[in-house]
């Protein structure tokens, strides 16, 4: 996917990226400056298949093959903001996919680990990240269920593949005070995001968030449900 593009084209993509951040991300409820800057810097069009490049900065997820998608830009930004990353922190991503989320994380912190179970996707993503200068991102081909205990515990974990349960090994590798973000819903239809926090005493809590403008659930003339 990562092919050379001309300087004129690059400038056009940069303008689109700027528009994407302004309209789709900052225009909604992502306020974290670091996240907005990361979204401005990473060339999303190099993470999508060539045939989807023209749509790379549109407000939508795109297919990347193997039944996987690159998430909508807003979802990537929102999930990254949820992790509340600070310099010096260490993050694990489960489900590398195209490598885009890992590249965004790498803009914010130095230690990023990412695991992809589908070998072809993982190899492609590793090559792409290296080519784009993200040599520090460590990519592993393997089962993300078990996390990456050799490098744990992590301050933040982001699970980009929708899971039907939350793997206990990942919870164990989350530092006390750490945050984990998981999208809930199938490809092209993320409806909620789940933020999992581990308190200093090790207690785990989840928070379900709807990444959309919220409408009251009860019509006029009544209190909330």
């Amino acid at each position, binding site marked *: 996917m990562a092919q050379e593009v001309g300087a004129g084209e690059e400038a056009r993509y940069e303008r689109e990226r700027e528009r994407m951040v302004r309209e789709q991300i900052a225009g909604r409820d992502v306020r974290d400056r670091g996240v907005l800057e990361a979204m401005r810097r990473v060339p999303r069009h190099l993470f999508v298949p060539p045939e989807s490049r023209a749509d790379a900065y549109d407000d939508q997820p795109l297919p990347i093959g193997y*039944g996987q998608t690159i998430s909508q830009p807003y979802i990537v930004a929102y999930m990254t903001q949820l992790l509340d990353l600070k310099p010096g922190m260490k993050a694990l991503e489960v489900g590398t996919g195209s490598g885009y989320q890992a590249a965004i994380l790498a803009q914010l912190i130095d230690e990023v680990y990412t695991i992809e179970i589908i070998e072809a996707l993982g190899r492609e993503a590793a090559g792409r990240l290296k080519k784009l200068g993200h040599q520090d991102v460590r990519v592993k081909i393997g089962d993300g269920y078990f996390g990456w205990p050799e490098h744990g515990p992590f301050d933040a974990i982001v699970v980009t593949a929708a899971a039907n349960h939350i793997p206990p090994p990942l919870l164990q590798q989350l530092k006390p005070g750490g945050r984990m973000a998981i999208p809930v819903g199938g490809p092209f239809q993320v*409806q909620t995001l789940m933020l999992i926090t581990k308190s200093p005493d090790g207690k785990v*809590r989840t928070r379900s968030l709807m990444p959309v403008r919220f*409408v009251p659930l009860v019509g006029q003339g*009544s209190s909330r449900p």
Partner: protein
Amino acid sequence: MLFYLGIALTSATILGLELALMRVFSITQWHHFAFMIISLALLGFGASGTFLSLFQHRFRSQGQRVPAVAAVAGSLSILLTFWVSQRLPFSLLRIIWDWHQYGYLLLLYLLFSVPFFLLATVVGWAFLERQERISRIYFFDLAGAGIGALVTLAALSVLKPSQLPAGLSVLSMGAALFLGWSLGRRWQLMLAAALLVPVVFLVRPLGLNISQYKGLSYALQLPGARLLAERNGPLGMVQVVDSPAMRYAPELSLNFQGTLPQRLGVYVDAELASAITHFDGRWEVMDFLDYSPQAAPYRISPRRSVLILGAGAGTEVLAALFHRAQSVDAVELNGQLLDLLRSRFSDFAGGLYTHPSVSWHVAEARGFAEAQRRTYDLIQIAPLDAFAASSAGVFALAENYVYTREAFRRYLELLEPSGILAVTRWVKLPPRDNLKTFATAVEALRTLGLEAAPRLFLLRNWGSATLLVKKSPLSPEEVARLKDFCEQRSFDLAYYPGILPEEANRFHLLEHPYYYEAAQQILSLERESFYEKYRFQIRPATDEKPYFFHFFKWETFRYVWQDLGRQGMVFAEWGSWIQAATLFQAAMASFVLILLPLFFLREKPSAASSRFRCLVYFSCLGLAYLFLEIMYIQKFILFLAHPVYAAAVVLASFLVFSGLGSLRTGGRPATVRGPVLGITCIAGLEIVFLALVFRAGSSLALGWKMVLSVVLIAPLAFFMGQPFPLGLRAIRGNRSLVAWSWGINGFFSVLSTLLAPLLAMTWGFRSVLVAALALYWLASRSLPAPRQRPSLVNGH
């Protein structure tokens, strides 16, 4: 006679094709989408009537070659359209993001209209060219369709889904052979040779292209994944997949620190539906079973006798044995699944499927409960979505009799005095399913004269919520035990008698304590106003309106519209949308295919009033016939305790006995008052007494239930088969009008399958009956005046 057999085989192919395409698209895409495609593809019916009415004069000299060639073309088009459709890069999930997908969708509509158009042309041609034999043709048309329904339902268990198109192509080619038999030896040889083409594809079927976004596609590309077994049947394609990287525990508490046992994924129509748990007899490694909200009822006190509704691969059954239940009745709808589990995975599951304490029953959950006579300490309803009572796919109605107010009342009747009903549903945001089950339990308890508030306990994990309904009030000790359990497992309390606001929404935080607040409202005197004002439909479903999964309210349309194309669309309920979109499309298409051609009819000897009468008469019949048929399928699902048996018995009985009714009209003057009076009396009586008959016959063996069903349907169907041929006889001689009427009737039959559920959702099934009878009455007032006295010479 061979000609009529050809007609019967053609009709059998048409009906079989509807069922087969529904199956194929349910596997490769999703069942709602299958419904949409097929409804539109059936427009081929309307188009065939229009085509014949506009161009029939060109075919007159071709004689019998027309139906034979149309049947050959129909047969080949089934194969060709199937092959092309499996290569189109269409993805339902991308449709809201990618406008190209609408182009592919349109292409699919057009593709699948072709075989329906060609095959309907065969039957339409017969009505046109053999007008003196209308009753006989209609008999073979209906009887063929009835037998086609039975044969296809049986074939769904024998053939792989990928073989179904070829099987139907063989049937259509066989029809061509019969239709062209009288054309001479050369034609006979050619048609017999042509039969080999679909036979080849039957032996070497064209492959299915399952969407890469379906669970099965993903699972099979994981390292080490293996497809271990497959079974096919009318309720779906069941596949068992082993993959070390695949785990299934959607209800597991976050506090579980252990290791999950190996589990095999059970996929139904390529979506993960259940899991087979490896069990080697060591209960000490099965403690994950105690980390699910479904373990809650066992914390109140030991449950000796347990009924599991929707047992799937048996996780809840295993949990019951883990919690020392002494006898378990496990009810599973999908017989193929149970067969597969018993024959291939009994050892893997530690003998669970042949365990002496467990009785497995293949039945629809509600039907089983209605016929059951013993009582239980615990009745547990697992999330049934994948094995829902309505998954026959015959008429993709989302009806479900497991979660109605009457069903809950029945479950409560089957409980011991201290028994518990436990209902688990997946959590959705914004909340809907679990609030509806809560409301349903409240109203069911009230119908039994029991106060609801002291008998309910609602707990919630991040992905599922379980409602406990105890027949007797929960004691303070029992509540304390449940609260301890929730605290240990980090499950949220949503309701218990005496709950304080601060006790809710502590572990899995929602923006507001929605569940707690909604439970309070539902238990208050304000509940009607709450149902009214809530953005989703959470009023309890009833047997009269058994649409538990119908949550969408049209007043939320503007929110969906604003979110269209975004990731949220939290208010969108795709089932309702697709149904409405399909209806809209069909109405548009009917205008183009049926009303517009009216102005281009070449023969115009008939007055405008006569054409208008034809339009009213045949559209009323098309709508009314299917209204009644669909309503009867719904009613008989409960009695026969199986949607496929119900569909097969009702469809076949209606079609065959209607065919016999048609034969009876052969030498009669064209008056429909008699048949309409018969229909009104019988349907009116049966709707009153059917429930009583079903109750009296609920303990009969299945075979006798089927016989009783046929007896109940036969007289009504007999009368319902008469108005259509009588109408055609009345316009006999006006060839354009005959062809056009055939198209109208076919098309409105399709529209009927879309309208009936919408009517039932809004006003209940009784409204469908009333509408059907009103339509028959209207038809009886609109019968076109005969052009000439009916001939009495076409006896049978």
